[in-house]
């Protein structure tokens, strides 16, 4: 009852390799991992591929199928056209060991660096009391099966190996978020840690991680953004902002931990004066102050954060999930031009004369 389908599978090792064509029998209801198993049993007994549960619960069979990071066991063959060639390649962000198997030790190193749960000192085992609504937020992140697809797709490291030391990746941001939201965790600086040690600021919320998550964890919306917002809350606290106007630069009281090796986007922005407007755009505090004259202060101006840039000072790209072949807008994808006049922070030289 099976039909022959065409597969192109990357074969090789750290020294290089190539896509190899196979024609394989595929039966009704099969998934990509079944096809790989059939290949192992027939044409390619030494085809290397990780797998365990074959039910989407262990996160072992992560691979890129037609360029999309997916679990082999959860990708049904019926999602492809009969005559479509299915290309299977190893995860691109991690070094290849052999064929579809990559060295994912990066993730285990980051896991080791993330401070563990700190049990409350005054509670004996058995005395923990928590409400369901309070544990549910962390439980969402504990659904993670560690398939590392989010790590693989994250452009901060996908195309920039050099970011790996300073950047832990989405998996470990939600680990930090999980502990941050744990009702009884005794550590209180999870957010600051994520910002200063894990490189949270590198993330510019393209949501690629959420898109590929096989457990449908809302990594960005429920994990990363709340962490960022609260870090930002502290950084852009009005009092702190006022303080930054009163104190000279360099004297600004620091409210959170920062470390030397991770220049997060938010931090570099804060150091530059803390404000930049669409109108000014010059990043020059003096020009900005000037531009702010005559602004309607009753309207709410969101404090924007600049997107993270990579080592070469450019915006990183996510070619996989991005909807156009270029960098995202530096003004944010939710901004369309021309802006409505009332939203402009523009003071006409003559405007004071009118009143």
């Amino acid at each position: 009852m099976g039909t022959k389908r065409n597969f192109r599978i990357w074969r090789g090792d750290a020294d290089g390799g190539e896509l190899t064509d196979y024609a394989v029998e595929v039966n009704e209801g099969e998934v990509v991992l079944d096809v790989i198993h059939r290949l192992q049993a027939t044409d390619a007994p030494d085809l290397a591929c990780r797998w365990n549960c074959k039910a989407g619960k262990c996160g072992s069979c992560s691979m890129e199928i037609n360029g999309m990071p997916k679990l082999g066991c959860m990708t049904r063959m019926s999602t492809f056209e009969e005559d479509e060639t299915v290309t299977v390649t190893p995860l691109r962000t991690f070094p290849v060991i052999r064929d579809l198997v990559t060295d994912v030790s990066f993730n285990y190193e980051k896991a080791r660096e993330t401070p563990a749960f700190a049990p409350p000192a005054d509670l004996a085992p058995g005395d923990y009391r928590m409400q369901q609504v309070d544990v549910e937020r962390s439980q969402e992140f504990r659904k993670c099966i560690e398939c590392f697809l989010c790590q693989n797709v994250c452009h901060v490291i996908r195309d920039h190996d050099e970011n790996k030391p300073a950047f832990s990746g989405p998996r470990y941001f939600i680990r930090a978020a999980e502990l941050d939201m744990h009702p009884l965790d005794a550590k209180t600086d999870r957010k600051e840690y994520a910002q200063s040690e894990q490189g949270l600021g590198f993330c510019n919320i393209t949501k690629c991680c959420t898109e590929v998550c096989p457990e449908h964890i809302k990594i960005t919306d429920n994990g990363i953004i709340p962490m960022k917002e609260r870090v930002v809350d502290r950084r852009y606290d009005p009092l702190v902002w006022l303080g930054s106007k009163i104190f000279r630069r360099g004297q600004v009281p620091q409210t959170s931990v920062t470390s030397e090796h991770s220049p997060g986007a938010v931090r570099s922005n804060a150091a530059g004066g803390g404000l930049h407007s669409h109108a000014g755009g010059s990043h020059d505090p003096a020009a900005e102050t000037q531009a702010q004259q005559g602004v309607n202060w009753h309207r709410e101006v969101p404090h924007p954060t600049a997107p993270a840039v990579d080592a070469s000072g450019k915006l990183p790209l996510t070619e996989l999930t991005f909807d156009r072949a270029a960098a995202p807008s530096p003004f944010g994808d939710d901004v369309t031009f021309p802006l409505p006049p009332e939203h402009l922070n523009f003071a006409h030289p003559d405007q004071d004369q009118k009143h």
Partner: protein
Amino acid sequence: MTNDSHRDTSATTRIERHHYDVVVIGAGGAGLRAAIEARLAGKKTAIISKSLFGKAHTVMAEGGAAAAMGNVNSRDSWQVHFRDTMRGGKFLNNFRMAELHAKESPQRIWELETYGALFDRTKDGKISQRNFGGHEYPRLAHVGDRTGLELIRTLQQKIVSLQQEDKRDHGSYDARIKVFAETTITELLLDGDRVAGAFGYYRESGEFVLFEAPAVVLATGGVGRSYKVTSNSWEYTGDGHALALRAGANLINMEFLQFHPTGMVWPVSVKGILVTESVRGDGGILKNSEGKRFMFDYVPDVFRKQYAETPEEADRWYTDPDNNRRPPELLPRDEVARAINSEVKAGRGTPAGGVYLDIASRLPAEEIRRRLPSMHHQFKGLADVDITKEPMEVGPTCHYVMGGIEVDPDSGAAYGSVRGLFAAGEVSGGMHGSNRLGGNSLSDLLVFGKRAGGHAAGYVDQLAARPRVEVAAVETAVETALAPLQRDTGENPYTLQQDLQAVMGDLVGIIRREAELADALVRLAELRERVAKVSAAGGRRYNPGWHLALDLRNMLVVSECTAKAALERRESRGGHTREDYPTMDPQWRRLNLVCSLEGDTVRLDRKPLPKMRTELLGLFDRAELAKYLTDEELAEFDALAAADAADAAGKETH
């Protein structure tokens, strides 16, 4: 292709050497819990994982971990849990293990919370507990239907936290506990009768590695890969069972395999994947192709008193368990699996050869998605079935082996001729008797994982001198491991595995017959010849064909044990059903079948079961005991009861 450059297998063999106090083989729940305990006892500990760290088969456990915490029904206690466990195992359990398990599992669960686990909660903020087959009260601590994942992740993160302490105190994460991921052990090495180390290879590079250690804890899980329809992953090749046998330990109860009643049956590619018992615990019912709720016809006499006789009573039980009896869908797993098997054989099965499991008509869609998220996800993703709208098609799947290494109940030390070998979790035998209750495996691996780890550490402390690894033994191990790569005339390992699965599935499956079992032994002997000549193409780097070729001999010897014991036990009990001896025989309850290795061949002995202490026996009704015990044992029980009564009367008069 670059394979040829790796084919230099006969050239000089490098062997990496490590020294540890305790080596834990297996990184599932039991192995990680054992390793934590050994490390907490101050021992330098290695964890060997066949897969990546955290990918263990424990993640497949969905329902929960049974522990008599009494959070949902305060009438629960260790005595009730003990009783349920013994009943579920048809009284063949090692009573001491069942006792320890029932007493200690609540502490083991609470301990997990201090490691960061987040179980679902009751209204008053305690750990929620759910109903499950064979458990009298709601007892399973759970996290939705992904409890196993929570457990493994919690233990994994506890190990990381210990490593962080070591980094702080000793400057290195790996100072006192290290995980060797994707490493397979092929041989245990002995010094006389004492364990001296373990030999294996890194899957990634194919390089060999030798762990010198005076104590080894086996926590390698089960044997399900010998069956075609199984919920088990590729790792479940009976490695620990076989390693123990070859080191001189014994296996008991190998005839008892649990076929989980509800595995997926469609599509073919996912046949065997588990559908959690929670579906039934939360109200799911089984129907045949005629739409009949058939389980009412299959309640055996021993359980008649505890189970509802009408659908109306059964349905009332979900909301009022104190005044109604349980639905028969929640009978122990062996009973439900046999019932489904009979329905299908009688021609009342679904097109794909299963029965219908219906939750859609029983709960609102929203509630199903909330209570059974991963089942909803699994059926949607794998079968394109929406379980909130349609029934599932399910059938029995090989799930768990009750049999395993015969151990001392308190310490987990293996019996037999070897010292320094410990076992915990599925690879050890006795705890579950002839049938395991759902939810008892997760608590089993915590309770006995901790015990095995602790006692392995204690054993190391009392050793006067370290055992030494013999060079000759290492050389033999290297030769054995390389042999399949050097042969190019033998058969493909995948073909051999399929043939083995066919023999076990067809001839040593759920329902067994004498002639078939005898035939199976003949075929297994033939397979043994073929496996001895297996050849693997390719090189040593991450070569799954080679890995399977090495696993095959383990699967084979364990399958032989199962087939031999199944042929010997002439009764039906729990996970062993003989068509030619369809009833339980109290005489057989008194016996364990013990497998050991004599040279190359499996030897089978009968061994009397340890006798249950009288105060434990006293927890049961005489009427219930009468279903399991021999007349002789009952007379003894009566005499004791009479003596007690006389004693009590005597005390009153004085």
